[in-house]
């Protein structure tokens, strides 16, 4: 049983000259044109630039050269990845009109691999949210049910892949922002080990947690994209200076002999239908030769609280630079301090302001030890808890999210309920580990359920081959049918 490789198939067609990159692009632009009015996955579709890139790929093929493993494959980028000369907004008014003078490292690597960038996807403002509703440019809708959220913060990228707008997309995951929307949209999404993918050019939310990762329709495609974007980057001091495991080649090795720990803390808070799908996935792994046992990592329940001190703390500092002085929005006022205040008041949305205030508070004199430093101690505890589990298990298994996609507007009035959406994904970020969400059937409401495979640092190869077995055993998921247009 091998994981399907649609992007490899597409790239090989372009590389061999069987299809032109321009033809592949135009087909996808047409789907975006017909469907994105309803989904709003994109903040910007870079039609002209994409055509230029596709033409360049075809020219390379005609010259007898190889454009690379993603030749002509359309890719969407979360709008917090810097793209030279192309607006990069983080779905915030404060960055409206800003055009970065440089490409993020991952954008550069995609380009070198022959990929064609089709646009920038919608997100929660500055990646703060779990539903893409905090975007300053309006919410993205879940392609499986447009009355539902796609999850977030990388909701635009997840929806773009789910809707068939693009076969591949990049997101960023600080507390679950790739895996949670992947689960809710029925696609594959992976957060790699901290330090395996360069953050250079990723607009920072919480620097010690942020990591760029792939969205794809299949595990093999996610692996392919990870292989392209991963690896050491001298522009990122936290980039690991060691060979990143190439994962595509080990995908089909199977799970015989592996020990899979079913993480009880993640099952405890989840809806019964989500728990049921997770157990079915575990059964499938057992059937494929893995040893499955229930495992408890009690520390993970502390993750959410620790995260909401550490991430806002770092964010309050990272977002200080949006001061109206150098780029983006400026609201004029009598002096620089007043200008700064007016600009930030007008430019940031409510959720961003909430987290800046929270973060400023937890770092302030007299409170830092009780909050921020205490959270760092909890973070260490969580790392130790995982380490204990990984002495017994090769990987851990659990639901990606406690529920399926919730209705648009259902949680916007209650931030704490919204935060709980990431309870199963946050511990991985705090530990710096990799985890992948893979679709496995649907909930009682017919919406996709995601199962999460977690592993220790640099275990991408292992978690992806486990995910490939889960994928192979998953009941087929109905393709989303959009009200307008729909897919052929």
């Amino acid at each position, binding site marked *: 049983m091998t994981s399907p490789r649609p992007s490899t198939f597409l790239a090989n067609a372009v590389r061999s000259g069987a299809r032109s990159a321009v033809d592949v692009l135009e087909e996808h632009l047409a789907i975006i044109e017909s469907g994105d009015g309803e989904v709003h996955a994109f903040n910007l579709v870079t039609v002209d630039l994409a055509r230029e890139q596709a033409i360049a790929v075809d020219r390379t093929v005609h010259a007898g050269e190889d454009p690379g493993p993603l030749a002509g494959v359309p890719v969407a980028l979360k709008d917090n990845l810097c793209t030279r000369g192309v607006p990069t907004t983080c779905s915030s008014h404060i960055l409206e009109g800003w055009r970065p003078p440089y490409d*993020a490292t991952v954008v550069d690597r995609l380009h070198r691999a022959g990929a064609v960038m089709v646009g920038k996807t919608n997100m929660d403002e500055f990646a703060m949210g779990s539903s893409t509703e905090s975007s300053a440019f309006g919410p993205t809708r879940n392609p499986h049910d447009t009355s539902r959220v796609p999850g977030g913060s990388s909701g635009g990228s997840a929806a773009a892949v789910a809707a068939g707008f693009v076969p591949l997309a990049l997101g960023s995951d600080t507390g679950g922002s790739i895996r949670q929307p992947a689960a809710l949209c029925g696609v594959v999404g992976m957060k790699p080990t901290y330090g395996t993918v360069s953050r*250079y*050019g990723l*607009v920072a939310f919480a620097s010690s947690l942020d990591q760029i990762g792939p969205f794809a329709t299949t595990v093999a495609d996610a692996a392919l994209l990870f292989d392209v974007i991963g690896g050491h980057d*001298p522009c*990122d001091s936290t980039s690991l200076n060691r060979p990143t495991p190439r994962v595509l080649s080990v995908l089909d090795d199977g799970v015989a002999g592996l020990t899979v720990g079913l993480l009880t803390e993640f099952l405890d808070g989840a809806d019964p239908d989500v728990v049921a799908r997770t157990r079915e996935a575990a059964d499938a792994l057992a059937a494929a030769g893995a040893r499955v046992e229930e495992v408890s990592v009690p520390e993970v329940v502390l993750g959410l609280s620790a995260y909401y001190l550490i991430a806002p703390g*770092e964010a309050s500092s990272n977002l200080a630079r949006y001061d109206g002085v150098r780029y983006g929005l400026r609201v004029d006022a009598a002096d*620089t301090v007043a200008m700064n205040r007016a600009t930030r008041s007008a430019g940031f949305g409510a959720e961003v302001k909430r987290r800046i205030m929270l973060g400023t508070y937890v770092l*302030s004199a007299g409170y*830092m030890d009780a909050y921020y430093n205490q959270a760092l101690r909890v973070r260490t505890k969580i790392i130790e808890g995982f380490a204990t589990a990984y002495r017994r298990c090769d990987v851990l298994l659990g639901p990606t999210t406690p529920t399926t996609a919730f209705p648009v507007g259902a949680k916007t009035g209650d931030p704490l309920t919204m935060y709980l959406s990431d309870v199963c994904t946050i511990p991985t970020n705090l530990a710096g580990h990799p985890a992948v969400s893979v679709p496995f059937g649907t909930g009682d409401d017919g919406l996709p359920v995601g199962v999460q495979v977690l592993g220790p640092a640099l275990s991408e190869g292992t978690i992806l081959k486990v995910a490939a077995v889960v994928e192979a055993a998953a009941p087929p998921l109905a393709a989303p049918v959009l009200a307008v247009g729909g897919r052929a």
Partner: protein
Amino acid sequence: MVIGLEVHCELKTATKLFCGCPNVFGDEPNTNVCPVCLGLPGSLPVINQKAVELAMAIGTALRCEIRPSTFHRKNYFYPDQAKDYQITQYDEPINVNGYLDLPDGTRVGVERAHMEEDTGKTSHAGASGRIHGADYSLVDYNRSGVPLVEIVSAPDMRSSAQARAYAAELRAVLIASGASDGKMEEGSMRVDANVSVRRSPDEAFGTRCEIKNLNSVRSVGRAVEYEAERQIALIESGERVVQQTRHWDEDAGRTVALRSKEDAYDYRYFLEPDLVPLVPDSEWIHAVGDTMGPMPAVRRARLVELLGDAGDVTEAQVDQVATVVDLGLDGLVMAAVAGGVGSGLALARTANEAATDAESARRLDPERYVALLTMEASGALTATQAKAVLAELLSAGGGDPAAIAASRGFETMSEDSLAATVADVVAAHPEDWERYCHGDDADRKKLSQFFTGLVMKSTRGQADGKAVAAELRRLRA
């Protein structure tokens, strides 16, 4: 009084601390910038290895313990702070627990010497040139991200003279270690002083004030003196000193309050997540130390030794020694003495003439310099001629001193020719000659200079001043 100094030193690296932009003073505004030093969204810092080496060189020169260190973010809003936080070392600095010995023998402790990045520079357009009443402000980010080391002394100084000596000695050490050009007028070295007073050395320290904007060694002395007197006057009139940051107004010669302790910022320091800890191994630390030459104190001692017994060294020569070492010209003096030139002459020519264009002098081939001074010492060139040849050597960036002298027609006058010229001059000024012969010592000295000047003029500097004076004495006798 009790004084501690905090000195910011810009490191003499080719590029900035966290990016590849050139570290140059005085370029067109905002030309040496990139996403990193502009703090653009998504950019990340990468530490400059050379800056770490220069920081370790400072630590070595100041006898510090060089340790594993980390970077923090110091958060505050200011338009010239590109990220609205400064990356700086906080509780784990690279250098700790060192000291600097002053020429008077005082040992001043160095608590820490840590790395951080510089800010950009704001200028306010408008009549006042200050922020109040400005029409608009401009920010130049060329300086943003320039590497700094902040050297924090212990409160070990007890007089303005010591504060001045510390600043001067530290500047010499920074230059000698290769870490900085020490140009205070360009802001390469900036000094803040913490000053407090107390009635007797047995009492606890008084409340201190921090004085900013000290842009020369001289202003360090003046500001410290003024501030101590201000605090003493306050206490004697029954008031108390309030902990403040004060600004030194060089023109007015006084300090003015900037902000008090209550207004202090909450910088919300936390570990910089975009950088990893700096852990230099002992091999690297030693390699840095091995490339460093001797420090100024050692080099000064060597020169003084050349001059003879300590008792013979004049105050002027002590100053000359300091100048020569500060400018890195002691090698020329050593070479000249080794080549047989008298130490007094070698020191004087180097401190007084070569020092006027130290940059060219440092590039001079020592052999040429020794040849020139040998010509002067042997009488082949007069002092005036030797100075002229040296000036050309420096401006031309080298050359053969003998050839330069020949091309200018510098030849030592024959004794006969000199005697004839002196006789002519004396004959032309009989009254002055009369006064020279019969006046008092002061008259004679003055008139000797007068006649020598006339001889020099008529020979266009070819005469040897000493020989003229001797001839005058011979005629009178």
